[in-house]
């Protein structure tokens, strides 16, 4: 593929403020219940008493997630109508006029990117702010981040700059869909596994 747009996430500076989420909602006019970008929080570790004092090895980090615009998008493969398509720049999009709202892609997407629109009965999703990008502007979430934890660009260039990490807990193996993502992992993400950590804010995402 000549070009593949991708997001970069710097977990080491993300405070989980959800500025990106709200910027996205504002840009796309999203009602409560629909979020193209969400922020997950992972906690782990615990407490024990040492000599009558509480000692802790707690860890915590956040993970802002949107559509990964995968190189092998499972959503595209399973979409029965062809409403899902991949543009030349690698952006995965949905043509809402063609979508029948079967929600099959929701099962297929391992990133929860697919958002069912109760009003129209079809699927919506992150379109990488293609309209803004066409005007030379960054995606709303990237421009919003007060910690500069988000960036975007061509996947190869991002990988050259930031490395090739494409998954930390709780993301699935990149082999599943080849997500177009580069992650600078939080130091604690190395400690996190299904046994030692868990997503703690499911009611928020």
């Amino acid at each position, binding site marked *: 593929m000549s070009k593949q747009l991708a997001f970069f996430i710097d977990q080491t500076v993300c405070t989980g403020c959800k500025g990106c989420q709200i910027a996205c909602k504002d840009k796309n006019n999203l009602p409560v219940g629909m979020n193209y970008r969400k922020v997950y929080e992972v906690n782990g570790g615990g407490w024990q008493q040492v000599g009558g004092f509480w000692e802790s090895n707690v860890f915590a980090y956040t993970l802002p997630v949107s559509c990964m615009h995968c190189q092998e998008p499972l959503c595209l493969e399973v979409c029965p109508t062809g409403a899902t398509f991949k543009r030349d720049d690698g952006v995965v999009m949905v*043509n*809402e006029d063609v979508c029948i709202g079967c929600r099959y892609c929701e099962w297929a997407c391992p990133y929860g990117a697919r958002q069912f629109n109760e009003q129209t009965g079809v699927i*919506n999703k992150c379109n990488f702010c293609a309209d803004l990008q066409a005007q030379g502007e960054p995606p709303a979430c990237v421009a919003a981040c007060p910690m500069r934890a988000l960036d975007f660009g061509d996947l190869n260039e991002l990988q050259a700059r930031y490395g090739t990490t494409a998954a930390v807990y709780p993301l699935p193996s990149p082999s599943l869909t080849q997500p177009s993502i580069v992650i600078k992992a939080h130091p604690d993400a190395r400690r996190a596994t299904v046994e030692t950590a868990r997503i703690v804010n499911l009611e928020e995402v």
Partner: protein
Amino acid sequence: MDARQFPSLLLAAPHRWLRETLLQVLQAWPGGVTTADNHDALLVAAKAGTDIVVLTPFAFGMHGADLLREVHRVAPRVRMVALIPDDDGDYRLAALRGGADAVVYESQADVDLLPTLQTVTRAEASRQLRRRSSRARWVKEERPMDNPNPIAELLTERHVSRRSFIKWSAALGGAAALAGGGLKFGLEPLKSTGAAPAAVAGTGEWITAACWHNCGGHRCLLKAYVVDGVVQRVKTDDTHPDSVDFPQNRACARGRSQRQQVFGPDRLKYPMVRKHWAPGGGDKSLRGRDEWVRISWDEALNILASEIKRVKDTYGNESIMVTGGDITRALTLYGGYTTTWGTTSWGTWFYTGPKTGLGDGLYATSHNDRMDLRNSQLVVMWGANPAWSSQGNPTYFYQAAKAAGAKFIFIDPFYNDSAMILADEWIPIRPATDHALALGIAHTLITEDNPKTNPLIDWDFLNRCTVGFDKDHMPAGADSKENFRDYVLGTQDGQAKTAEWAAEICGVHPDRIRALAREIAQTRRVALLTGWAPARVNNADAWPQMFMTLGCMTGHIGQPGRMTGVSCWEKSANGGPDLVAAGGSGVAGVGDNPIKTVVNNNELWDAVLTGQYTAGYKSVKPINIQMLYHGMGSALNQKVGLVKGIEAHRKVEFVVSQTHFLTTNAKYSDLVLPVTTQWEREGYVKGNREVLMWARQITPPLYEAQDDMWVVREVATRLGLDVAKVDPLPLKQQVFNQIAGAKVAKVDGSGQEPLVTISEADMAAMGVTGKPQQGRISLAQFRDQGIYQVQRRPGDRLGYIAFEAFRKDPEANKLKTDSGKLEIHCKSIAEFVKNSGFDEVRPIPTYNKATEGYEDTFTDWAHKIKGGFPLQLYTIHYRRRTHSVFDNLPWLREAFPQEFIMNPVDAEARGLKTGDIVRITSRHGSVMRPVWVTERMMPGVVTLGEGAWSQIDETTGICQAGATNTLNGAIATGQGHQGWNSCNVQVEKYDGTLEPDATWPQRIVFPGASNHV
């Protein structure tokens, strides 16, 4: 067909703005137009014999279809044209089901209404024709539609601009939607592959919009994209390329949600009075659960003025309690008013800080600027979470220090979100015990220090720059026994404040206390930074002094990378005077308040209920408060003792609120007055140390909202006051004065220069007066960019190191303390506390156990036997809100669910898991919330975000929203600060459901409906 034959119109809509706009459209209607603004008038007029009713069926506070049926019942022959909100097919269906003959979308009404009326008229005419024909077949009449139609002529002319139509439609749409029953958001997602929104198509204008809240953040840039009066999108700073030295001022989730605030369907729309209100109060017990009756501004202002007059005449000016707002300008001229005293956010920093020599943290800072922070090798964040409490750039500035190599230690009960990315070490500590930890550190330093072999104490600094550390450095006239060193060593009281002593109280292992002491003392460049939170504790009067003493002992003051003080709120991570600042507004004061009575925040509600208040040392005076005037703010929700507050609100004779929403203040008022937001006003000037922003008007006032000052002026007029004195300058002139007076630091650091160049032509164009001046940028540039930012780079001459000159030469650069030095022995703070009348403290920073602190969770401290309230609650600045502002926005409610935070150890002991509904009870009240169980909180401690809008379940008395002041009792201690972070609670599983806040109906009030929402 002549006008007589033309059908008559009745225009029925509760919204004045809508009626007036539509009347313009219909002004030439040949059949005549009458109007109705409420339900009863509509029915009467319809019955009286109109031909066509044009109405907004969903805006009358009942289901639109029912209203249409009602109209049909009283006037079966009348034709009905329903104006409905835009974005939902359900309204169309409901209107047609209700019997509407035609439906017109509100936003299209300027274009579609007349053609629709034409159609309906034709139908009406042919119907009449048929009726007549059936009676008298021989009558031949021309069909009206064949006649030249005057409506066609009306159609050729637009009487109303599209702009105003779309605006009220966008603004009212959601509100009308809600009257129809059920919560509809009114947002429709844009198509990802559809046409570009206008914001991209470039058909509107980006205008700098005010983000005016008391958020503690860094004052960020917000721009609104306005198309035809509607805000389609907001964005943040993109006025220059972003770099860490010269960063964009990026806004937080709250600021970016402001579209939902200003245009929220729950905005108060018109003045309303409580149904069972009567002069003197009426049935006062109904406050908070009564119905609302819509009244005109004239009625509202007459009620307000006459009540002020009545209360003054009956009880005297002292009986009028003002919790905030510009009404004080009028009341000062009307004999005065009572108000409150005592700090809020600062805790004890406001008074103890400056009296002992440090800054309070807002008006004066004691920490260095953000560039110098990068020189620190160790940053101690003591009770500070800028990621929540100072959103915007501060956490980014701290991150820059970390990137430059600083180690971060967080001392906090919660492994907070700032710690998540910055902390190299987290020291969990019990709330209200910071002072004990600091004493443990001090004891370690004193006992382990050896100037030659193990220098831990900066004796040079102590000797030259402080008083009161030991008996050899006492201020003149002080008792030499009253020195800090002997207190720490226990020379007089026999109790050495060892690490072990401290550990028992604060919960930090003694070894860790000693290690922390050594690390702070042995690291060359340390930033000892704290937020105000540890000082928002009962009896914490000595804490700021203690914190300062640590800085003095270790000498981390007044040099590059070395600083000690408050780093929070707007000044977080960036100390020093403003490099660019607005000028004054030019509004002259109205003189002193003739009434000198002030009631401490902690005693406000008690004063109402018991009729007395503490007036000073051993002085209790009577008071008879009969009027509560909430001219701004959120006193009932945001001051301690909310449960008593509600009782007080149901006791006085009159309560009034100027407000945007049905806030807690407004809910318990007799009279509510809708006021404009900053987006509806002339302009707003605000900034931070490096930035000044000029926000402009985004939209004309919505609904019937008026500026706060307009209300004050109208009241003043009715009271016969000199209005020119009350409100001497138009807002536009005030804004101009601030801009014209704006000063910016010269690049070489040698002083200041005017920021803006202003010409006579500029002033003429703006409609203001002033003198032309030469500045750094043009007025047009400032206006268009909406921001000016000082360009910073490392090593520039704009940096700031607090106490630099003082440290070099304390004699030549005396501080504003009694001794001119940093006062480890401070007589004035001890006197100030004594004269406040609640209790006393010593001049040195001793540990004073907090009322409802850790110790009070025990019934038997010696044997560590817990009592009925075994957990410590402290209350945090929560990301959904800035204090109580923004609590009502659906986007933020979804993102931040107001969860009750608890450790797994405590949760498991109570059989609780994340998502369970719990009841939290203190000695003062009870709230319920979903619990969030996380290892990030230390055992024994729980927290809940402050500022949720009180929502009392009248049957159980439990607050469902989790308003923390329900739990925080009003306990007056020391200098009369509010001790939110000392509170004991018990937590139990609540057997009941509680829907997520995001699904709660918004507080949309329609006259005639109960306000118990």
